[in-house]
């Protein structure tokens, strides 16, 4: 959609964010839960449907459309996005990309309606950045599989109806080729979700550990019906998710800028607004420039993905730059607020804690650096 066409969609999201989501942020942070009526409103508005193809009841937005919606949506605390983003993103995208037609028919319409929240289970206690070394096993037994192992820091696990689980089907292959993806429904015997973890920020986006103890699933639970494809699916989904995370960072960065400039314009010191002082202006200018750069990277990479270009390097660069930038911007936002930025009276204290996670999850900055360098060197060797 061109800018004119997408404008009403963005205006609709902006209105929800300004009128409903931002005013409820303090409750969200305090109660560590999205108020039920806001979840219902997000469902009614169709926010759960953005990345699901239209034939399965979704909006079927292109990546470029999606990132512009996310820029608006993520002006609100990032926990709101977690339900929607994880479900549409790493959780649901694996089904969109590599699910069998039956799996797509079974799950995608329920994802689009917001009825089914999906969790993505890749990380384990001993394999985070080194995802390929995961130890959860899926042993073939009769006409199904038996899963054993545990998964760490799983977003939305306490509320998920479906888990996309990466497990090793080939014990002989200790690398990526031995990993398969399974769709495991909540309530399957042997699947248990641990208590909600107490996090630094992003309260309201529940995270927990997930354990599989002789958890039996039918053969149809194997994503796409093919063994050994799990890691490939995960990597494809992660390219997509990294662009999305870049957009999340841009949304939060623009919100922090609103808070920063708003405060600087009204806070009086030495008889005038602190916005008049050049050292304050420098912090605003650096933040604006970085936010704009991140936005440009994300938009460009999203459009490249829509054209079908390979974007592994660019997606990692988006996630790396945008999350580091929003970290710096959050820090400056607190600095501009001075003492008021360190107390819970203003939103920047909370948003600063929320922002910290963005450099860690869905691939740390350091892993992003490795991916960028690896891809760049690959291009060099190919003589590009």
């Amino acid at each position, binding site marked *: 959609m061109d800018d004119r066409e997408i404008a*009403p*969609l963005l205006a609709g999201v902006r209105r929800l964010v300004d009128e409903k989501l931002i005013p409820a942020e303090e409750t969200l942070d305090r109660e560590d839960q999205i108020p039920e009526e806001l979840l219902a409103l997000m469902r009614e508005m169709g926010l759960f449907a953005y990345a699901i193809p239209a034939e399965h009841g979704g909006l079927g937005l292109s990546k470029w459309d999606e990132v512009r*919606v996310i820029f608006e949506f993520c002006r609100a605390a990032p926990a709101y996005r977690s339900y929607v983003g994880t479900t549409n993103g790493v959780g649901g995208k694996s089904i969109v990309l590599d699910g069998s037609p039956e799996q797509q028919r079974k799950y995608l319409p329920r994802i689009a309606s917001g009825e089914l929240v999906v969790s993505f289970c890749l990380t384990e206690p001993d394999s985070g950045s080194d995802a390929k070394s995961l130890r959860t096993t899926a042993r073939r037994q009769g006409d199904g599989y038996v899963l054993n192992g545990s998964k760490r820091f799983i977003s939305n696990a306490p509320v998920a109806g479906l888990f996309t689980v990466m497990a090793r089907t080939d014990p002989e292959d200790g690398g990526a080729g031995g990993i398969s993806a399974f769709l495991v429904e909540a309530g399957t015997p042997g699947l248990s979700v641990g208590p909600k973890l107490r996090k630094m920020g992003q309260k309201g986006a529940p995270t927990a550990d997930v354990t599989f103890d002789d958890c039996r699933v039918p053969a149809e639970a194997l994503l796409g019906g093919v063994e050994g494809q799990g890691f490939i699916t995960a990597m494809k989904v992660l390219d997509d998710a990294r662009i999305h995370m870049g957009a999340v960072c841009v949304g939060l960065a623009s919100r922090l800028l609103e808070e920063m400039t708003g405060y600087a314009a009204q806070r009086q010191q030495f008889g005038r607004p602190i916005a008049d002082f050049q050292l304050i202006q420098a912090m605003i200018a650096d933040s604006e420039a970085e936010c704009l750069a991140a936005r440009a990277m994300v938009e460009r990479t999203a459009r490249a993905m829509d054209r079908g270009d390979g974007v592994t390097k660019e997606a990692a660069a988006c996630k790396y730059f945008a999350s580091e930038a929003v970290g710096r911007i959050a820090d400056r936002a607190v600095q501009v607020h001075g003492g008021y930025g360190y107390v819970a009276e203003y939103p920047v204290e909370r948003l600063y804690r929320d922002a910290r996670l963005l450099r860690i999850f869905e691939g740390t900055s350091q892993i992003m650096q490795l991916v960028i360098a690896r891809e760049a060197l690959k291009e060099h060797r190919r003589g590009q």
Partner: protein
Amino acid sequence: MKVLVAVKRVVDYNVKIRVKADQTGVDLNNVKMSMNPFDEIGVEEALRMKEAGSVEEIVAVSIGVQQCQETIRTALAMGADRGILVKTEQELEPLHVAKIMAALIAEEQPDVVILGKQAIDDDCNQTGQMLAALMDWPQGTFASKIELADGKANVTREVDGGLQTLTLDLPMVVTTDLRLNEPRYASLPNIMKAKKKPIDEKTPEELGVDTAPRLTTLKVEDPPARQAGVKVEDVADLVDKLRNEAGVI
């Protein structure tokens, strides 16, 4: 039954209004425009009538520049069935709008016409009343409740002394007050679908309405800046100031 709803494009209620330096009006450059909030309430009420089964079709009308189409699209995204844009660059007065609406009523033959009680830009609060007079139809202004039954409507009005309920024969003109309902958020799928709904375009000339100005704006000014208050010593001092300086007691 068919409902005609008027939707006006106005400066968004969150925008801080700036008066033009030459005092000829309000600066509209790069200003966010939205549907008049009272009209949004009107669209919502029409949708509720349709959902209750008493209305088959909702037609949203906007009158003004080409961008009023976006305001109509908002109404279509909320659930209206089709739109009519009466396009003009001319600055319109309530009587122009009432005459254009009357001409559209002749074409569309609606049973109910809903307008906001006023628009938040010029706050005229005249169009609905003028339209009812032109049509010689019953009017229920400042409605906080509308019940349709047996070709009649019970309209509860918010008046200074409390609430007044009238029974009106259809067709009728209703203007909405704030407490009539809380308008819904248009869902993203409906916003996408609204792009495909039809919008007819007309001009005041085609409808035979003369939009020559009948009013002259002399000047537009900012309200006076608020003066600093004073601190009083005690209650006696306060009473003395209220009596002798303010002259209010």
